[in-house]
């Protein structure tokens, strides 16, 4: 609905505050990416440290995203399709990682994997999470799984269960109906969810810092690298990390807006 008595004061004031806010955001991005020179940026990008951070970030985020998908598909399907005892409690529990500061989540993971007998048992089988890249993955997983979960729950809820019913009358088992019908129909939601989870995984700092620590060339993801280099004044390296992070964020935001559609839960 648009409303437009000429020169309405309230219209001018509100649109101006809108522009102001958008301008502030834009300036901030520009500040970061213009704070170094292109040759310096190139040199930094080619450095061993940044190369390591890029590789570690991409890998850990990819793995944590896959884990998020693997658990969210069945979990979101259950909450979208079935009624069961405790469903609304579970829906609320799933939101906790969204509300929890990542730092606290990291402390929780550190305690769980570092001090409990469950954690020690895992460590004996070789699955060491504390101060290792594995810790980065679990931190990303824990903090980001609610995003993937919410997007997929919205996607599945948006698909009429009659599609599955028809597939079943046409000879599919429930699992086949899910694979041959529901999953292809969830393509956009899955894509949007994966991109956003991956992008947020790459940006994850607080939780990963607590579980995996900030060890140069060992648990040094892009945000950790940004943090380490800011701390010791290596500004060019820091800006390189920040620029990559900005590019990844903007591209994933664009993809998400394009495919997120009805699953905008972010």
């Amino acid at each position, binding site marked *: 609905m648009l409303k437009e008595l000429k020169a309405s004061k309230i219209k001018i004031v509100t649109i101006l505050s809108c522009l102001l806010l958008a301008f502030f955001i834009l300036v901030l991005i520009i500040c970061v990416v213009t704070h170094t020179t292109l040759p310096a940026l190139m040199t930094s990008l080619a450095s061993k440290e940044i190369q390591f951070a890029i590789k570690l970030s991409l890998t850990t985020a990819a793995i944590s995203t896959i884990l998020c998908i693997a658990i969210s598909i069945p979990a979101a399907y259950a909450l979208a399709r079935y009624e069961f005892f405790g469903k609304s409690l579970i829906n609320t529990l799933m939101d906790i990682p969204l509300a929890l500061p990542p730092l606290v989540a990291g402390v929780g993971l550190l305690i769980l994997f570092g001090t409990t007998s469950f954690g020690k048992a895992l460590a004996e089988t070789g699955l060491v999470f504390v101060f290792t890249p594995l810790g980065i993955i679990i931190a990303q997983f824990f903090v980001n799984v609610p995003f993937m979960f919410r997007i997929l729950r919205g996607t599945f809820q948006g698909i*009429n269960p*009659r*599609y599955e*019913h*028809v*597939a*079943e*009358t*046409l*000879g*599919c*088992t429930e699992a*086949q109906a899910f694979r*041959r*019908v529901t999953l*292809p*129909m969830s*393509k956009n939601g899955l894509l949007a969810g994966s991109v956003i989870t991956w992008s947020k995984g790459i940006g994850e700092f607080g939780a990963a810092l607590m579980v995996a620590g900030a060890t140069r060339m060992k648990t040094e993801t892009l945000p950790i690298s940004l943090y380490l280099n800011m701390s010791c004044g290596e500004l060019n390296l820091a800006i390189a990390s920040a620029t990559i992070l900005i590019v990844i964020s903007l591209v994933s935001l664009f993809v998400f807006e394009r495919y997120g559609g009805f699953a905008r839960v972010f």
Partner: protein
Amino acid sequence: MIRLENISKDLGEFFLRDVTLEINEGEYFVILGPTGAGKTILLETIAGIYHPDSGRILLNDSDVTEVPPRERNIGMVYQDYILFPFLTVEENIGFGLKSRKIGKSEIKRKVDELENLLDISHLSHRYPVTLSGGEQQKVAIARAIAIEPPILLLDEPLSALDSRTRDYLRGELKRVKDEFGITMVHVTHDQTEAMVLADRIAVMMQGRILQVGTPYEIFNKPLNNDLADFVGVENILSGVVRTNEDGVAEIEVDTGGTIFAVSEYHAGDAVKVFLRPEEIILSGHEGDSTARNVVKGRINELHDVGPLTRVQMDTGRSELSELVVLITKRSRESLGLQIGDEVYATFKATSAHVVRG
């Protein structure tokens, strides 16, 4: 043959209560009821999508209550088509055959045949979203009958379509039934649809089956007031258009006699004619007026219904030749109508509502 024995199912808002029903092989069976009567659950329970809380379902005398949908071999068509949006028309129709691990060339042959039958060959490579409602529903029908089910369940299949397409698809449904000898179970809230299509009708309200019978029985002998209120009373006559001059059709009625009606159907078309009992006038002798139709008969029943009197007159041999007329009580008194009196029923060509038979 489908047999439902004391089926109950509670889904909160919608429910079935102790439904017992027998549907014969090769029959066109219509389940008629208002919105929210539980008609869709009933179909979905027959298809195996819901498991009844109590009761049994038998297909050809074998109990399938515990059999999952994929093994029941029942086709299902919904009001909203539910075509798989990421598959082409061709792939949609072939979906069930692929599940059955049938060879590619065999699927292709079968799909082509069905596309020809339903006149949708030209749509073969298009995606559902690009089709009209009527086209989508033809694809949904083709997809359902591709697996050669002995039974086809139709959930308000024509309700989302415009009246012209609805009329055309009614004919297609009849043709599918005749061509393949499929038992059709068709759910609708539309009385005309039920009258035109059904061999038998079951009326369903609030989760219960209240009456089962031929269209004539359902519309002219409702078992109680609720049913009478819901179905309304209608005179239904079957016939064939003899001529159509300037938009007025002369229809030869199966039970004898001719009716004039404003209609676009052509000579040779099989039609059904509906006459609302309020629109028929009775008189003691054949007058001359602009009303094109005058039918002579004898009163065989008189009932008072509120301010009105329901007059049933016998105009010939078969049951379909009975005509129901609603007049005011005062008219009955002033004409002194009695059972056995000979009367003339008069109605205008604009009062006779004609649909494809």
